[in-house]
């Protein structure tokens, strides 16, 4: 097999991986991690999910895409402006290449690092190399193994001790090759008493030929640190997306995950907060909107390993057309995790008779002194609400929009970033107009 240096489209094979490494596109692999990851990928079966059929996803159909594609105009415009009030930094990766990585120089001077994860992991002794793969192991399943073998570029964000970053760090992963496979990879380390907000968006143009995105995000939240990770899943409606995100949360530290689940034809996400030290806490917020034939399978885990840990999850989903959602929310409280508090609420609103939602909240509690509760509802839009709003002059479409906005409102109020609220509302409008 020959590969050109400017353009690379190759099957997801061991030869391709060797070539990536030889050409320095994949990091120097000091611990032979990639070879082991490939072996794990080759050995594993596709995950078997109870309510999502992955048997029609053939990974062999996809080829690796490294070369950057054509970014949408708004992203290109963003890369040209350096508005440090709006954002602390900007990282843009297109397919397998980083096309932009820029940080407020004032933060760089304080030791903050925003840049290529590939470069940050070339030496085994580096901070990044030591932690990469420690939060999400390569061999967890076939897709984490696939990502761990083939990722290129990647974001490394490091926030040193006592540094609090006000404005969000904006991250974009873009893909635009039909039939291509992309492997976004993120490692965030927030040291003791640090604070940072990451706003990640994944985008691709709409098309007919499927595109595969298998991403892995690892977040290490040091003692008393605060990390807010906002993830807007806006892949095009032809994308098949596998998302694995986990935060290891230290003593008295907090991770907030905020999800906007909007795109992809088929998505499986797994988001975990591992509350491994006393006083660790997590908030998980999510809004999901499925339309057309979209299928979103969302799995969340609030994993209470240590005592005095807190979890609070609120997800809301709206489905129209023939869209389908599966929400599995697990609260797990280990034997040692006394005095844990954990709450989970999931509500879904169906706008059509053909839409379907399954919500399966569950508790695994092995400690005897905890407070935990969960609740889930799936309801159809109430015709009497529509009629009432119509009698005030709103059209059926306007009435539906008002009801959907109202339904998402409790979560929108907890998403404090106005720019994120705006992005989500735009997306809802687009979905309702379609």
């Amino acid at each position, binding site marked *: 097999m020959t590969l050109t240096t400017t353009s690379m489209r190759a099957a997801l094979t061991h030869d391709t991986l060797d070539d990536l490494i030889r050409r320095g596109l994949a990091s120097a692999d000091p611990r032979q991690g990639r070879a082991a990851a490939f072996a794990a990928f080759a050995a594993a079966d596709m995950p078997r999910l109870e309510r999502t059929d992955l048997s029609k996803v053939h990974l062999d159909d996809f080829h690796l895409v490294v070369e950057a594609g054509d970014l949408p105009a708004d992203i290109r415009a963003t890369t040209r402006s350096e508005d440090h009030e709006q954002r602390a930094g900007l990282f843009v990766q297109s397919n397998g290449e980083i096309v932009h990585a820029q940080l407020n120089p004032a933060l760089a001077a304080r030791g903050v690092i925003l840049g290529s994860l590939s470069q940050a992991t070339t030496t085994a002794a580096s901070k990044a190399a030591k932690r990469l793969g420690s939060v999400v192991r390569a061999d967890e399943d076939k897709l984490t193994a696939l990502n761990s073998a083939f990722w290129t570029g990647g974001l490394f964000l490091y926030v040193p001790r006592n540094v609090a970053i006000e404005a969000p760090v904006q991250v974009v992963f873009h893909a635009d090759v039909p039939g291509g496979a992309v492997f976004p990879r993120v490692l965030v380390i927030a040291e003791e008493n640090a604070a940072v907000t990451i706003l990640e968006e994944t985008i691709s143009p709409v098309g007919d030929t499927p595109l595969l995105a298998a991403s892995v995000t690892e977040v290490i939240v040091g003692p008393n640190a605060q990390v807010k990770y906002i993830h807007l899943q806006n892949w095009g409606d032809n994308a098949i997306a596998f998302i694995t995100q986990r935060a290891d949360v230290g003593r008295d530290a907090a991770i907030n995950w905020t999800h906007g689940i909007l795109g992809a034809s088929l998505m499986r996400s797994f988001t975990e907060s591992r509350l491994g030290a006393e006083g660790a806490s997590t908030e998980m917020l999510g809004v999901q909107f499925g339309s057309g034939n979209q299928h979103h399978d969302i799995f969340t885990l609030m994993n209470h390993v240590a005592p005095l840990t807190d979890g609070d999850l609120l997800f809301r989903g709206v489905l129209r057309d023939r869209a389908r959602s599966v929400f599995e929310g697990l609260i797990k409280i280990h034997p040692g995790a006394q005095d844990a508090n954990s709450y989970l609420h999931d509500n879904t609103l169906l706008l059509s008779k053909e839409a379907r939602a399954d919500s399966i909240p569950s508790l695994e509690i092995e400690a005897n002194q905890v407070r935990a509760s969960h609740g889930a509802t799936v309801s159809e839009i109430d015709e*009497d609400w529509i009629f009432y709003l119509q009698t005030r002059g709103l059209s059926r479409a306007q009435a539906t929009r008002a009801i959907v906005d109202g339904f*998402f409102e409790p979560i929108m109020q907890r998403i404090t970033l106005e720019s994120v609220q705006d992005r989500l509302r735009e997306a809802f409008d687009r979905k309702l107009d379609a």
Partner: protein
Amino acid sequence: MSNDLDIRNLHVSIEGKPILKGLDLTVEQGRIHALMGPNGSGKSTLAYTLMGHPAYDVDEGEVWFQGENILELAPDDRSKLGLFLAFQYPVTIPGVSVANFLRLAMNARQTDGKKIAIPAFRKLMLDKMKLLDMDPSFAGRYLNEGFSGGEKKRAEILQMAVLNPTIAILDETDSGLDIDALKIVANGVNTLMNPDMGILVITHYQRLLNYIKPDVTHVMLDGRIVMTGGPELAEELEAQGYDWVRQQVGLAEPVIDVELVEE
């Protein structure tokens, strides 16, 4: 083109069961009409049918307003023509504030597609709230969520004030209200009443009519208007009861009571 609401020979059924059986009624601009009748006589069916609720099937008849037979129109188009219904049981719309809801309703009726400017809207809303003696904090609350019976009805009258209809239908606005709340709501209606507005007050009891004085009173039995008179008719009805009406109009058989037993 008339601003009166003209109902002609209206027949309406629900799931095949006839409820309105040839109803004729004209509500004139500048006048308050009271429509009285016992439970099950079809009062609320009339209100919902006039606004276009999809569960009610119109089998025969016409309703003319602003030069159109409005039975062909969607509920929102009827609203935009100037028809308003204050609901007996207003629904709760979670997450939608009173202010936001009113703004959506105002924007929906802007004919040029433009939106009403927020400062102008705020002023309009706060003026109307003041007129109805409502606390400004009301605007920020989610519509009808956790509202008392009186608050729900005041929210309905606030919507009427902001939308300023030509013809307003008040469906059992007195139900579930204590006397103080009733007076507040009635005062609101009286404040809004003007020569360009016609009001149809639907009620089971005469009580509300002590505070909202009708020019005309209609009595409804078994899906038809059976008596029409002046304000004194409401008082007579209060004194004599609906059986007196049945005897007067030769409907001795208490059709309605049979229906109630079935419920």
